[in-house]
């Protein structure tokens, strides 16, 4: 792909958009040993994010996707941080130009990747979707719980994910797209776990802001022990903690009712761009970097 080299030690990346997600990515890419930020392409050179990009990126543009395509020879990988709607158009252009993209919008097109579950599949696709913050925080747990339940002869019947994020970390885009978030997250959970799901999002105005918290419930038939459930999810949690140490089990799996598992996670970010409470931002940007590193050998 791009650049014409088969094997290289560093990825040359472009970012589409200059909002909070992009700005957090600048900092994460800056810290990465394997990624160079070649281009930040948004629609407004005067935005805070564009101005800031000058100190992180080799070039900054206000021509958006057009400039990404124009400089395609210089680029191996694109991070799309625009919007679900914009991503659909962006992807058709990127794909026509053989550019691989990691999509951080809740567009729902492209292959859904959860690093702790299916990161290996990323290599086979050119449009990699990271679902949503609720998806990144809950699916690793849910996938392994459901897998464990099925292996022990139980049947997961229904799962529910309720996330709370701080008001300060929920920008207007998040608020306008709340329905999108719910529908995409629920669809992805059902796809990964092969079970009916419901997703709830609360926005908490507390000050100081709360960390992102996600609670998970699973209804199932059969029987399990709480101890085994904890073991079933300890590996994915350790996996995520390697790239996001603030991902933490707050309530270990508990049978609140005989056929209902409940557990809860809190997600603190690295505090790169937004403060640590905005775990909802970091869980998705950290996953993006993780996936990019995975793709490195491929590029």
């Amino acid at each position, binding site marked *: 792909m791009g650049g014409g080299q088969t094997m290289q030690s560093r990825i040359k990346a472009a970012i589409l958009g200059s909002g909070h997600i992009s700005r957090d990515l600048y900092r994460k890419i800056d810290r990465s040993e394997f990624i160079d930020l070649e281009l930040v392409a948004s629609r407004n050179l005067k935005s805070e994010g564009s101005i800031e990009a000058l100190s992180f990126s080799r070039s900054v543009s206000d021509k958006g996707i057009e400039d990404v395509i124009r400089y395609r020879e210089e680029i191996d990988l694109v991070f799309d941080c625009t919007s679900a709607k914009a991503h659909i158009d962006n992807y058709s252009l990127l794909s026509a130009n053989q550019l691989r993209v990691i999509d951080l919008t809740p567009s729902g097109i492209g292959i859904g990747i959860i690093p702790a579950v299916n990161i290996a599949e990323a290599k086979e696709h050119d449009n990699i979707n990271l679902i949503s913050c609720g998806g990144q925080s809950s699916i690793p747990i849910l996938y392994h719980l459901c897998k464990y339940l099925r292996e022990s002869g139980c049947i997961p019947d229904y799962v*529910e994910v*309720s996330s*709370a994020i701080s*008001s300060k970390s*929920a920008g*207007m885009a998040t*608020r*306008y*797209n*709340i*329905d999108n978030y*719910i*529908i995409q997250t629920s669809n992805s959970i059902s796809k990964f776990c092969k079970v009916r799901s*419901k997703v*709830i*999002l*609360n*926005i*908490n*105005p*507390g*000050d100081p802001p*709360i960390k992102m*918290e996600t*609670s998970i*419930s699973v*209804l199932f038939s*059969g*029987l*399990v*022990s*709480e*101890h085994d459930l904890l073991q079933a999810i300890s590996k994915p949690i350790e996996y995520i903690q390697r790239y996001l140490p603030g991902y933490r089990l*707050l*309530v270990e799996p*508990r*049978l*609140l*009712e*005989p*056929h*209902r598992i*409940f557990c*809860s996670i809190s997600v603190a970010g690295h505090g790169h761009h937004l403060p640590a409470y905005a775990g909802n931002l970091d869980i998705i940007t950290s996953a993006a970097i993780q996936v990019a590193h995975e793709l490195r050998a491929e590029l």
Partner: protein
Amino acid sequence: MRGFVKLHDSTLRDGNHAAGHSIPLSYIQLHCDFAEKCGIHSVEVGHGNGLGASSLQVGLSPYSDEEIISTARSALNNTKLAVHVIPGFATYDSDVSPAIDYGVDIFRVGTHCTEASISYSLLDKLCSQRVEVVSALMMSHMSTKEELLSASLILQDKGVNGISIYDSAGCLDQDDVKDIISYLADNLDVQIGFHGHNNLGLAIANSFQSYISGASLIDASICGFGAGAGNTQLETLASYMEKKGIDTGLDICELFYMSDFASSTYCSIKPATDPITIACSLNGLFSGFKKHILKASKVYDVDPFLIIRDLGSKKIVAGQEDQIYVSAKSLAGSNEKINSDGGKPLSFQLINNVFPYSQVKNIDKVLFERRRFYSECSTCRDYDFDSNLLKFEINNISERGFHYYDGSRETGYGGYNPFPEKWNDLARLVISEFNLGVSSKILDIGCAKGFFVEALINNGIKDAWGTDISKYAIESASLNVRQRLFVQSGLRLPFPDKYFDFLFSLDTLQEIPFNDLPFFLKEIKRVSNKSLLLIPVPSPSSIDSFKSWSIMSECSFTKEDWLVILKDLGYNSYVSFTEIEILVN
């Protein structure tokens, strides 16, 4: 400013919090019939948190939104049909749009008072439809009047028909209401509403004050039926307004019939201000949290008031019910329930007691003499719970190990040793009493070290099994029976329906957490054809000290209490009691 008033009946929506979101459809229909007759302006129906909110998080409803709305729709003509919507629970495409098709007239779009912006995209779609839209600013006590106004002005621009101030935690008083409502009424063009909760007993006064200050859309519930402490009581408010010469448009007489009907059916448990709901109010928490707080308090053994204080400090908003469990978990272990008062050494003796069949009317049969084996344990127990390990074992039922079974008498049985002749006696007795045969399938729940299973096998039963929650006990069982025993909570038995001919639960029931009893008995009933529960109960003189005798006792009831409980829970097989007398040295 005083003008017309529209009384909005939120019984079937907010009341659903109190009714576990399961007010039956037939009552919804009858309630709506009454509402028509009374001339109520509008009736709100649905899950307590509105459309699409049936969830483990808040509570599951047995009825779909469609069923509830259609039922109400068919009963209403002049009275308008309203629903509640909270973005984050419901989405436009999957919940709101279908509700428009089912014929809803009024949408109450609720958000936490500071977060109205999460409803903008919904309002953009909804306000262009031919329905009435009222924005509900919930937990209004968490905003200033200026913040409420600036949120309201944007909502007004979005095209809503009204803005309602929800006192979801029931912690405003008349001065607050006057201040907020008159300020909004002076600065907004749309109708102003007020939704009162009764945590401080001020719901009627606040609602009346809101009308005096310019609100025209006032929410109330029949019998005050609602979350936690309940809402403004509709029949009281309407009567009081009529007394003050305000035309509510309601037929008060019909309203009383409606109240009678409601209180004898779905609002049979009247909402009341109690310490929990008052504390919720003082800590600014949504009243509907009460049930979850009590449950979490039980699950994690934490003082509910500690939970309330913690949640209040985190500013938990309506919809964050999961945080109640997170909070309880974080507090678990911080309060000591067991007093170590140095107590008095106790010893005990046993009285065998037989209850004749006739005394147990609703339970199949009660029988036979039970022999106890504890008399060999001569040491006494005192209240010394210093050992952290023991505390751990006591609080973690599945971790019961050495200390409980084979530690000192201070920490448990003081040696749970086999007395084969006693167990053999018991086995022979039940085999003859219940005509058990060689091939009878038998299960002993709470089998501990499997002594009884072993005795059954020694007496010719081939197919006897045991389960216990303690891994330690089962690992300590003799090799003859180890493969017939397994570690398992009695709440979920891995057997098909009616698998066992006979099931025994010896000395176990009193150790099951009370909240789990229904599940435990249900499982017993499910997997067995017949069963026998042996339950130790205190003799009349030992009621107070019984708890100290049975260290793990979750349920120390008298036999009369047990009979009522078992009957209530639908248990219909055999039961026997052993009366225990405890002597203080």
